[in-house]
């Protein structure tokens, strides 16, 4: 795999391979020395045109834990402020011969543009309303760990909230369904994109059947993407769609990509309940992003390796 641009590019076996590598990095993260020399001497560029805490910090730490050299660039305080185009910025950074560029931008397809204009491996860390594949991978990882499952076969997942503006929703519908889950997206009709069913999910405009869900995945109300009035008022949204202790059942687990608008899409009590995996998701973010960088930047073959018997490969027993 050269780039991670969209979940749509991934087979189930790709997802399983990355998550199994992430399992091994969890072991590394538990050691006293949390660093491995895998990407020593290689350069990772973090290029963030949008605000981000967990995605940028976890990619930074992931690169460092793999011993890569890291350059972090934010749009504010860089030449981007001065009006440099994405393509020109990438051309400039390419002079450092980076092995990987991690990009977050408000424009759909930004990561594809970068992938086509440089030789580095490109990771899409969020491109507008389109996709956020590393988030989807870490969510599958978190769920598998919490539920002790290898696959998500037959699991019922509800994704609730502002699906229209959510790149997380798009990537997660693709990833959850690829791993065998049944996904329902739910929200006010104004915040559900037309023909979202073509992604392979069901649609509901109310929470009446939320009890069917094994997993409730709440999305953030994206005030910064709300140019028009998509909901009559936040109070009405809360009344109809907030996940609170009245709606969340004890057997269900709760996820949220963060940052949470407390009291809007989630009530404070469910955030702190043991059912909430929100903190686990952040911890998973680090090891899954290490696994992503490792997967993209380790090009290896099995032949001749170690002069012994070949290692078993995923999907092809030795």
């Amino acid at each position: 795999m050269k780039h991670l641009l969209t979940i749509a590019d991934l087979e189930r076996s790709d997802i399983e391979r990355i998550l199994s590598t992430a399992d091994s990095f969890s072991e590394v993260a538990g050691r006293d020395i949390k660093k491995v020399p895998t990407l020593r001497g290689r350069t990772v560029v973090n290029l963030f045109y949008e605000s981000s805490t967990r995605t940028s910090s976890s990619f930074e730490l992931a690169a460092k834990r793999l011993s890569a050299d890291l350059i972090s660039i934010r749009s504010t305080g860089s030449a981007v402020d001065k009006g440099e185009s994405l393509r020109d910025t990438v051309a400039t950074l390419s002079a450092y011969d980076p092995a990987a560029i991690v990009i977050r931008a408000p424009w759909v397809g930004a990561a594809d543009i970068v992938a086509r204009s440089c030789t580095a491996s490109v990771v899409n860390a969020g491109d507008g309303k389109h996709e956020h594949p590393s988030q989807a991978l870490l969510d599958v990882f978190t769920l598998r760990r919490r539920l002790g499952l290898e696959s998500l076969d037959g699991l019922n997942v509800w994704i609730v909230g502002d699906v229209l503006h959510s790149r997380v929703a798009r990537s997660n519908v693709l990833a959850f369904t690829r791993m065998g889950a049944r996904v329902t997206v739910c929200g006010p009709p104004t915040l559900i994109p037309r023909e979202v069913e073509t992604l392979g999910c069901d649609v509901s405009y109310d929470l009446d059947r939320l009890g069917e869900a094994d997993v409730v995945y709440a999305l953030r109300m994206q005030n910064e993407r709300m140019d028009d009035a998509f909901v009559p008022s936040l109070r009405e949204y809360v009344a109809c769609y907030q996940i609170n202790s009245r709606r969340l059942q004890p057997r269900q687990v709760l996820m949220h990509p963060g940052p949470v608008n407390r009291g809007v899409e989630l009530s404070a009590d469910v955030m702190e309940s043991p059912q909430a995996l929100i903190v686990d998701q952040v911890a998973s973010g680090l090891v899954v992003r290490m696994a992503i960088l490792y997967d993209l930047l380790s090009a290896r073959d099995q032949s001749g390796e170690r002069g012994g018997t070949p290692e078993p490969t995923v999907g092809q027993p030795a």
Partner: protein
Amino acid sequence: MSRTVLDRDDIRRTLVRIAHEIVERNPDERIALVGVHTRGAFMARRLQALIEELVRGEVPLGEVDISFYRDDVAVREPASQPVVHSSRVDFPLEDMTVVLVDDVLYTGRTARAAIEALFDYGRPSRLQLAVLVDRGHRELPIRPDYVGKNLPTSRSERVNVRLEEQDGFDEVEIHELGTPVGGPTA
């Protein structure tokens, strides 16, 4: 074209001998075994049982996966990706004589990576290397302390170790590849 060089009984006898050598060479030491994934880990488990019987005590057992410590992460051709296993060394290495266990010793690069991996867990007082087969062609100054069998090979040959835990049967065979490979990389 392949020929068997060690069968099931040979492998069993060889491991018994290595277990004795480890105990004899380290009479007063605290011994621990760390196997290199995948087959080295199974060998280490067998040696653990044998040594525990000899010393009538517990011998800590760990395993390391060297994927994250390879020296060729960047240069290999993209192809099928080997599964990365978890390492597990859940005992302190300090004041231990650690015997690293692998199936085949070839270029020495795996052993080098395993040594580096092990040192991320602590500082053993002594580190030794046990291998089932030494097939020569070293590219690094690595020397095994315990060798099951010295097996002169050409680079165009391949040594296949099969262990019951992984493959369903015990065997070491030499397999002649059609054309010489460009050179070992691991």
